[in-house]
């Protein structure tokens, strides 16, 4: 490469305000091997791209360096322009003069010099560039959706309705997720289960959806379009093909005092159980941790009860493998428990509840059949206090973010209380009321104005018990920080929404990144909110951040569209930025000595064994080969290869070395 064109972009004033772009172009123009160097206001604009195309033709350029914004932003733009002019797109490189230079430095001589250095490095790199061809990989048109909450349900249905197969896996015995636990939903106060259950049934009956409940992802191998998911089907101990779901076993089960997960610990369930009446599938599983038979080796009452002989005591976990082309992560969220709050009694006061527990109290399917009663004594609370931002927006608690849904559900809770307990008094302690959303502000106003909920702006310092009453001590900042003390029969904490337990491990299994709070990270906060950094894996719902139902459903549909779009192609085109093990003519074949240290180092299982055989079929050597479908171009193998037998195409050792040396050689 020796006829290189260099194009320096002003990026409006983004670059040119701090960097002397004319000087950059001038100095780079004097570099050995640079045939043409110009600067222009907007290189990404049509006229800007035309400059590049024309220069490629006019000067017979065999390499292009664009000094502009980040490659992430416009590399495809400039590469396309080069390709249109007949230059292999991978002979076009970008120097990031904006994020790496102008945005992070003051206007000065040094800033311009740094810009020159950045471009110079890329000029040296592009001299060593080789034309590359894109890699084409086939697509398996089947999606895996992980998580059977509303996000997973919606994503599954949407994908299934585009005609593609979906495998939906759910950790619990039933799909439904948190939405199935909710009483009524803001801002319309329609019954959560009433709107959810039809969807659950639709999932169960959809011909394109294969549902695995009580199942977890064991591992995921492969790459976009070609994943291999190993799924652990946890032993249910009940044969679903014969079980009629009659429920007789559940009624007879002697272990009845297990706190019900579905009721957020407020009710109980048996050891063989269906989590809730509308569960899908509506068939029981045996909770082996609590079952008498598994604990002590005797009981088997359910077996005796079962008319169809569906109990399978010796059933073991089963691991199945499914090939899928895309994955939607919809593993949802969790809420902090009351035990997270020392100031509110560490969860030891029975009548201090989480919002989710209050949902169960308010729900007709709940332990109190929808009546608001104190867990401690079953009486109806006359005075109730809601504490918003319990944990959220509290850096001291390690949760600086806003959980987003609490303002709304607290208003809803207060409203439901007022509707259900006539003459009751409800107070809400809040920091700010965040009611962004269609009809949300109106909803909150209704709680305050129509349902006479007492909103106190201030934080609650302590909740403690005194003479059977809960004393809520806080301040009212609107009254100048005046201390307030309220006697309450019940306190409801709008505890923070947090990442689901196990999300970190799951993220590592899937090689998706996650934020410091273990929520999965989207690929771009604005423009790629449902993509992850791992191609082919998408996000839906609250596993990415706390969000309400409409937002979750919208995101799930968004993810579904991404999957459908992916499946609309028979082949995928991938960047050829992958590792390659060198091959040489016989008798050398390769400098690879087959130690396979690269194999132990590769996080993507992309290293394969390749046998080199002689003409007579005898094995000459076994060397490493990179599966270019699996390889993500991370370069770990390259760093690890002692004999330097592996290189990343487009980022070869020679190229990177040339870049570094261009700086050192000044």
């Amino acid at each position, binding site marked *: *490469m*020796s*006829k290189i064109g260099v194009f320096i972009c002003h990026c409006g004033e983004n670059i040119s305000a701090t960097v002397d772009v004319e000087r950059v172009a001038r100095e780079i123009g004097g570099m050995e*091997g640079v045939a043409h160097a110009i600067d222009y206001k907007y290189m990404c604009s049509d006229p800007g791209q035309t400059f590049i195309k024309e220069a490629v033709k006019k000067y017979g350029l065999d390499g292009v360096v664009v000094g502009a914004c980040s490659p992430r932003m416009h590399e495809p733009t400039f590469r396309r322009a080069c390709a249109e002019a007949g230059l292999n797109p991978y002979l076009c490189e970008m120097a990031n003069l904006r994020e790496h230079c102008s945005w992070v430095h003051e206007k000065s001589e040094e800033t311009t010099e740094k810009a020159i250095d950045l471009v110079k490095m890329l000029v040296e790199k592009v*001299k060593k560039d080789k034309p590359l061809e894109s890699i084409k990989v086939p697509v398996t048109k089947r999606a895996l959706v992980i998580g059977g909450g509303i996000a997973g349900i919606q994503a599954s249905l949407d994908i299934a309705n585009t005609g593609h197969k979906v495998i939906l896996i759910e950790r619990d015995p039933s799909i439904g997720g948190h939405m199935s636990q909710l009483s009524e939903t803001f801002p319309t106060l329609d019954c959560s289960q009433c709107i959810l259950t039809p969807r659950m049934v639709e999932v169960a009956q959809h011909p394109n959806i294969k549902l695995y409940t009580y199942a977890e992802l064991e591992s995921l191998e492969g790459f976009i379009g070609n994943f291999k998911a190993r799924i652990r089907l946890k032993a249910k101990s009940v044969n679903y093909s014969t079980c009629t779901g009659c429920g007789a076993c559940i009624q007879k089960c002697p272990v009845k005092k297990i706190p019900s997960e579905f009721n957020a610990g407020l009710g109980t369930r048996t050891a063989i159980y269906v989590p809730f009446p509308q569960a899908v599938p509506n068939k029981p599983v045996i909770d082996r941790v609590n079952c008498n038979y598994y604990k002590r080796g005797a009981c088997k009452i359910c077996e005796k009860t079962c008319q169809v002989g569906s109990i399978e005591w010796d059933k073991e976990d089963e691991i199945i493998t499914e090939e899928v082309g895309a994955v939607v992560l919809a593993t949802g969220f969790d809420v902090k428990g009351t035990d997270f709050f020392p100031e509110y009694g560490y969860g030891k006061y029975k009548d201090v509840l989480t919002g989710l527990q209050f949902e169960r109290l308010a729900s007709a399917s709940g332990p109190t059949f929808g009546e608001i009663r104190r867990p401690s004594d079953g009486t109806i609370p006359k005075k109730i206090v809601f504490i918003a931002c319990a944990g959220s927006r509290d850096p001291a608690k390690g949760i600086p973010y806003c959980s987003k849904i609490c303002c709304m559900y607290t208003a809803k809770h207060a409203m439901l209380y007022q509707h259900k307990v006539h003459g009751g008094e409800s107070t809400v302690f809040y920091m700010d009321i965040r009611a962004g959303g269609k009809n949300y502000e109106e909803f909150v106003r209704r709680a305050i104005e129509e349902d006479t909920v007492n909103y106190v702006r201030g934080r609650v310092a302590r909740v403690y018990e005194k003479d059977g009453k809960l004393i809520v001590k806080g301040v009212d900042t609107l009254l100048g920080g005046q201390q307030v003390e309220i006697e309450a029969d019940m306190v409801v904490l709008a505890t923070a929404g947090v990442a689901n337990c196990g999300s970190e491990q799951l993220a590592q299994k899937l090689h998706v990144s996650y934020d410091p709070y273990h929520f999965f990270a989207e690929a771009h906060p604005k423009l790629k909110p449902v993509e992850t950094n791992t191609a082919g894996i998408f996000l839906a719902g609250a596993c990415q951040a706390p969000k309400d139902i409409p937002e979750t459903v919208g995101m799930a549909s968004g993810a579904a569209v991404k999957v459908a779009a992916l499946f609309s192609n028979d082949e995928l085109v991938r960047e050829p930025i992958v590792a390659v093990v060198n091959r040489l003519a016989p008798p050398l074949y390769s400098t690879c000595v087959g130690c396979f240290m690269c194999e132990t180092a590769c996080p993507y299982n992309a290293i394969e064994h390749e046998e080199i055989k002689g003409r007579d079929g005898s094995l000459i050597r076994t060397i490493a080969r990179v599966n270019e479908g699996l390889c993500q171009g991370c370069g770990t193998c390259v760093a690890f290869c002692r004999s330097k037998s592996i290189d990343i195409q487009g980022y070869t050792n020679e190229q990177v070395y040339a870049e570094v040396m261009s700086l050192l050689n000044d």
Partner: protein
Amino acid sequence: MSEKNTYLPYLMTIDKVIKEAPGVKTYRLKFQDESEAAAFDFQAGQFGEYSAFGEGESTFCIASSPTRKGYIECTFRDTGRVTSGMASLEEGSTMGFRGPYGNVFPLDEWKGKNLVFIAGGIALPPMRCVIWNALDLRENFKDITIIYGAKSVNDLVYKEELKEWADRPDVRMVTTVDPGGQTADWTGEVGFVPTIVETVAPSAENTIAIVCGPPIMIKFTFPVLEKLGFTDSQVYTTLENRMKCGVGKCGRCNVGKLYICKDGPVFSKAELNFIPAEEY
């Protein structure tokens, strides 16, 4: 002391770049110093050390004919550090050249004889020098036959010259590609060089065969020539071994007692019989 530094190259300007085949280029080099140009002379078969400044030196034969004055040419394939450094240069750039080194094809001795040139792949360059040399002194020789083969049509080098030679009435030109290497419009032969030689080579009577190609081709062509009646002193080849100095000191290129850089690179088959074949 005004001893000359053997390792100091002449500075040459790349006057012309010809792309021969994928990864293969020919550079025409001109001396930057007029007096050096005037004093320079070489003969067919000789080689030199070519510098890409910044990368190092590499050994190639001089591919142009000594009858064409004022420049030398080299043809190379981009395979290593130096050749890739060379490949990235362009017209007007400076290269280095040391030479000429080594012995020569005895064209004077061949006067009045038929010549058959047999070459394969990238080994045509050393041959090209002597072909042009012979063609420029055409009256000195009788029939001239050129048999040239490559892996595929794409791999044939000096395409223009192949055409020129083929069009000449005083040259018999046979080009061949390995089976599978032909294109739809290929009009030449298809087959490995030794096989083709067997069918198209002229009579051994008063003929000199010059063979140049990869070791495997030479290995299979020699017996064919023998079968056709060529004696060992009628067959010539030029050898290549790894070299660093080009002047018999660095210790690499010897084949037994003989140094390719000094006693070669041109050897008659008769001479080859006295050196161990495993060392080249």
